[in-house]
């Protein structure tokens, strides 16, 4: 009786998720002159999400709940990192059974997805790594353990400024390394870690190429495509993803050389920050670009924060490589769970200059107090430099689309008026 009901809920949730994914993809593709190389990514999402397909990865899959999980180590241990952070309203609703109504959509949707599709995921995921970052993620980790997942809590310091914090984190990563090796039964060697670092660094190099193309004005690529590319990194095979992004970059390079551009030449250039847009919840970036703006840059953990920084190590030996990998995940991090997060403000300011930004759009998911509390200082920073900031509180539902579009359009209109008067 109970299971029968669950099967029904599962069926309907997955159906709604498929509908959501399909709608999002339609919106993403409904733009003129999409790059040919984006086809790979559109197809990837369609086959995996909209058509209810599944992924085939060789080896143990390690689910990760945050950008704080060092994927080089997972790869070096012969496993596959798979970021679980979910963006679907259907799963958000399913997660409401476990988490408070005021919890953030992302954490709730992730829990919801792992609850609804537990039969598949418990088998596929060798381990779910939950970094102890924000409250919602931490407690979600406990919930997942109760559901029967093999949860590993990766301890993270709450500040990154002291040497003690750094060493605490490095030790935590060392413990994680041991656990990984135990799980996969494969020893991480200088060679395997070196190969993993080379692969991920190459991914970041290609990501930075894309990042740099977004600096060009008039723009050569839409932000929605850039976001989809980094979203694909969550789950796609790394080598395949790398090839597809390289192709896209090469295409964009040609486009830039030929002087081709997308959208309006005078389109307001937006820097997107705050809670991360995760497919299919690309609502706000899409609304922005549908309304004639360009999301020229983003400072979110589903994109730039995930793929910008690379590992640098000094000595080719595990004793130096592992702490180097660890450093990469703590030192440049600008997630607001870290206390004294001046780096984020500086980063945004620097990006606003580099990308010739006209306005900032700051998304927060209702319930994410950390992003909401940082909003004030960020807004103040930009008020001083004359760049307007639009603060949008939202969740995964589409109910507020009308309201949001009015706000977004008014914001863009005021930017355009300002630009015209200059």
């Amino acid at each position, binding site marked *: 009786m109970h299971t029968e009901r669950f099967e029904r809920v599962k069926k309907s949730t997955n159906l709604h998720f498929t509908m959501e994914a399909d709608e999002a993809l339609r919106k993403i593709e409904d733009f003129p002159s999409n790059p040919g190389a984006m086809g790979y990514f559109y197809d990837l999402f369609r086959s995996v999400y909209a058509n209810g397909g599944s992924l085939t990865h060789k080896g143990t899959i390690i689910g990760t709940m945050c950008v704080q999980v060092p994927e080089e180590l997972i790869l070096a241990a012969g496993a596959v990192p798979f970021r679980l952070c979910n963006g679907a309203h259907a799963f958000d609703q399913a997660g409401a059974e476990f988490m408070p109504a005021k919890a953030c959509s992302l954490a709730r949707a992730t829990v919801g997805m792992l609850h609804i599709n537990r039969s598949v995921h418990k088998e596929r995921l060798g381990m779910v790594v939950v970094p102890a970052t924000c409250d919602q993620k931490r407690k979600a980790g406990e919930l997942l353990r109760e559901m029967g997942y093999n949860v590993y809590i990766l301890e993270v310091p709450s500040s990154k400024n002291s040497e003690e914090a750094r060493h605490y984190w490095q030790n935590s990563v060392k413990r994680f390394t041991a656990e990984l090796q135990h799980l996969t039964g494969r020893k991480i060697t200088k060679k395997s870690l070196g190969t993993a670092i080379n692969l991920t660094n190459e991914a970041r190099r290609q990501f930075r190429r894309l990042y740099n193309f977004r600096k060009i004005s008039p723009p050569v690529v839409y932000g929605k495509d850039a976001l989809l590319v980094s979203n694909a990194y969550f789950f796609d095979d790394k080598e395949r993803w790398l090839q597809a992004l390289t192709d896209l970059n090469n295409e964009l390079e040609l486009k830039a050389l030929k002087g081709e551009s997308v959208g309006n030449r005078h389109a307001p250039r937006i820097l997107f920050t705050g809670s991360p847009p995760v497919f299919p919840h690309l609502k706000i970036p899409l609304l922005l670009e549908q309304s004639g703006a360009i999301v020229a840059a983003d400072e979110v953990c589903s994109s730039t924060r995930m793929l910008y920084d690379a590992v640098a190590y000094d000595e080719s030996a595990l004793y130096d490589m592992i702490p180097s990998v660890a450093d990469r995940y703590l030192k440049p991090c600008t997630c607001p769970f870290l206390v004294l997060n001046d780096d984020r403000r500086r980063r945004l300011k620097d990006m606003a200059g580099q990308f010739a930004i006209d306005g900032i759009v700051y998304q927060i998911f209702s319930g994410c107090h950390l992003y909401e509390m940082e909003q004030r200082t960020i807004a103040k920073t930009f008020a001083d430099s004359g760049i*307007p900031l639009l603060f949008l*509180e939202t969740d995964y539902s589409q*109910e*507020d689309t*009308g*309201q949001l579009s*009015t*706000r977004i*359009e*008014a914001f863009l*209109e*005021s930017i355009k*008026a*300002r630009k015209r*008067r200059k």
Partner: protein
Amino acid sequence: MKYFCGIDIGSTATKIVLTDEEGKIAAHTTAPTGSHFHKNAVEALEALLCRQQIKRQDIGYIVSTGYGRKLFKEADETISEITANAAGARNSGEGAGTFRTIINIGGQDSKIILLDDEGHVKHFTMNDKCAAGTGRFLEMAARNLEIEVDELGDYHMKSTGVPATINSTCTVFAESEIISLMAGGHSREAIVAGIHYSIARRISRLAGKIGIEDKVFFDGGPALNRGLVASFEDELMREIVVPETPQITTAFGAAVIAQEAFAAEGEKINV
């Protein structure tokens, strides 16, 4: 003679304003939006043109705004109601230049717009998803008090003594609160005043968050309600400027933008 049309399709009413080449209001009309709002809007526009004996081809440019703006395909351009409202207020002649804050109460939302020195949008905020502190809230209250919405102002002005306290901002709960206040022997006047103060306080709080400056320009249909204006004056402790026909400010702003766009296009052709 060329005319410019601004059409504001709101959740309750559709407002149409025609301006002439001097930017003065030549004619305006208000019609219920209804469920077939595209059809209703087109009919309202046609009726207005017919009444004023203006030919369709004499309209140089149409700008639509409001929630239904995207669906009005006849428009040459759409603009958000925030930009349109600011343009309307800026050009209304009603104490223009003396205010830097606009409070707009519509059928299902309320907005606060801050203007810069030149009267352009500097910052804005809107209420959240619910209908608290909007025209809908007033309609509900009037219905429960068994009076007309237009009478609310008069009731407020007639009230003496202490206004009744309305604690709920949620429309649903406020409804039952009003009923129990009536049962508890409060006069209609006191309840109406209480309702107005509760709305004014709610919106003033919202305004306090973004920081209001100078005099306040108050528009939207509910600005016709004298009682509500008085409550705002008390709550904000500032002078309130209400235009003659506050419900059409946004549509007028759209017409202003239409004229500007028409002129810009003309320049382009001449160049």
